[in-house]
């Protein structure tokens, strides 16, 4: 696809390699936004938070989405998440307490670059750390989240409740780009987004930049990259359950016949960092219904 090559050049990503000298997240952000503004001139900026449902091509999908939103099934998982959020841990403390003492930071700040540990922290990671620190035995702490759906859905419920408290607030991932390691992490995420992979040889950009607004095969509507992560954790109609963004990345990679990476590994953490930075200032809509 010639257009991607042009876009790659414009965004300072030569072929599949990064030219760090051209890296400037703020310019990337402006170009990313401008591209989608131009592609979808009738869509208001805030509307992009609704994923594919924001795009004018998907009116029928939106009508059904509006119907699900009248009483979205994720409310059940979120209610269970709320209970867990407020339940005191055996050794004292709780998720609610962790938010008060800063172990968990506001949902609008995620993913954030942690200067002390020099790592990316997402809401789920800090939620898990909060419980681990207290020695609380919760299934999602010991489960293989790439395989065990039950514990992962429970984690999505707690995370979903957490995000629900910040609905409508604008996402501003807490990243200090002056830290070279933070910038390098951002660059790895950007590279991942634009690099082709899998037997289908698609990049995230192939579907969500180039083909955004198209309906592949009539039942695979493609969302725009702008607004991608702000609806997650999400209840996918296809999955019939509330689930994590890590799970979505894995299944998305499988869809292009690429090897899915481990949840919370560098690939998907840097990807989530890049995607969320590209969605800076969009209102949070998590948890949400998605296709």
């Amino acid at each position, binding site marked *: 696809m010639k257009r991607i090559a042009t876009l790659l050049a414009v965004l300072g990503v030569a072929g599949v390699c990064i030219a760090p000298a051209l890296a400037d997240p703020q310019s990337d952000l402006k170009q990313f936004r401008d591209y989608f503004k131009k592609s979808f001139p009738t869509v208001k900026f805030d509307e992009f938070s609704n994923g594919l449902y924001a795009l004018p091509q998907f009116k029928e999908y939106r009508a*059904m989405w509006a119907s*699900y939103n009248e009483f979205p099934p994720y409310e059940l998982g979120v209610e269970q998440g709320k209970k867990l959020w407020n339940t005191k841990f055996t050794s004292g403390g709780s998720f609610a307490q962790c938010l008060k003492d800063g172990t968990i930071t506001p949902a609008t700040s995620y993913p954030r670059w942690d200067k002390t540990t020099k790592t990316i922290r997402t809401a789920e990671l800090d939620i898990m750390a909060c419980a681990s620190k207290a020695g609380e035995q919760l299934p999602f702490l010991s489960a293989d989240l790439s395989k065990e759906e039950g514990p992962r859905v429970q984690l999505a419920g707690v995370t979903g409740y957490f995000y629900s408290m910040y609905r409508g607030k604008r996402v501003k991932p807490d990243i200090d780009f002056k830290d070279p390691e933070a910038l390098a992490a951002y660059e790895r995420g950007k590279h991942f987004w634009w690099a082709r992979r899998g037997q289908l040889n698609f990049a995230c950009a192939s579907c969500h930049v180039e083909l955004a607004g198209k309906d*592949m*095969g009539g039942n695979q509507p493609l969302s725009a990259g702008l607004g991608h992560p702000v609806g997650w954790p999400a209840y996918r109609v296809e999955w*019939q359950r509330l689930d994590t963004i890590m799970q979505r990345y894995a299944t998305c990679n499988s*869809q292009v016949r690429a090897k899915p990476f481990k949840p919370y590994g560098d690939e998907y953490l840097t990807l989530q960092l890049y995607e969320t930075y590209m969605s800076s200032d969009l209102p949070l809509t998590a948890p949400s219904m998605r*296709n």
Partner: protein
Amino acid sequence: MNSLDRRTFLKSALAGGIVTLAASAGLLKPTRVLAAAWPANAFEAKTADDALKALYGAAAPATSPAVTLKAPFQAENGAVVPITVSTSLPKVESIAILVKENPNPLVVKVAFTGAEGYFSARMKMGKTSDVVVVAKSGGKLYAASQQIKVTVGGCGG
């Protein structure tokens, strides 16, 4: 009063001969009338007409403007298809929803004893199919029908 309490009550009541009084006062009668049994025959029927015969003793009538069905023309996903049925008929006794191409067409039946002739649900459809909704009012059946397209496949993950 559940059966355990009743046994305990009887045991203690027998001592004082209270049972006879209680029985005559109707205190031992169940306080809630049991709802009609789940219509297994209708749910197991393999055709819409058989399901309707099992429920109402008759097949689907011709469509009537008195019944409205609101559903997408194309379902985003066959697992969750939203459908709403409404009627302008007075005193609706029940509404039934059937998906002709489902292995067992009857999806749901609701009997009204106070609520209006209106019902909304989310249902599963195996493939593109006509959906028929039937409302019973004043002993008569009224129907509405619409096709819903279901596209299967795609890059499911």
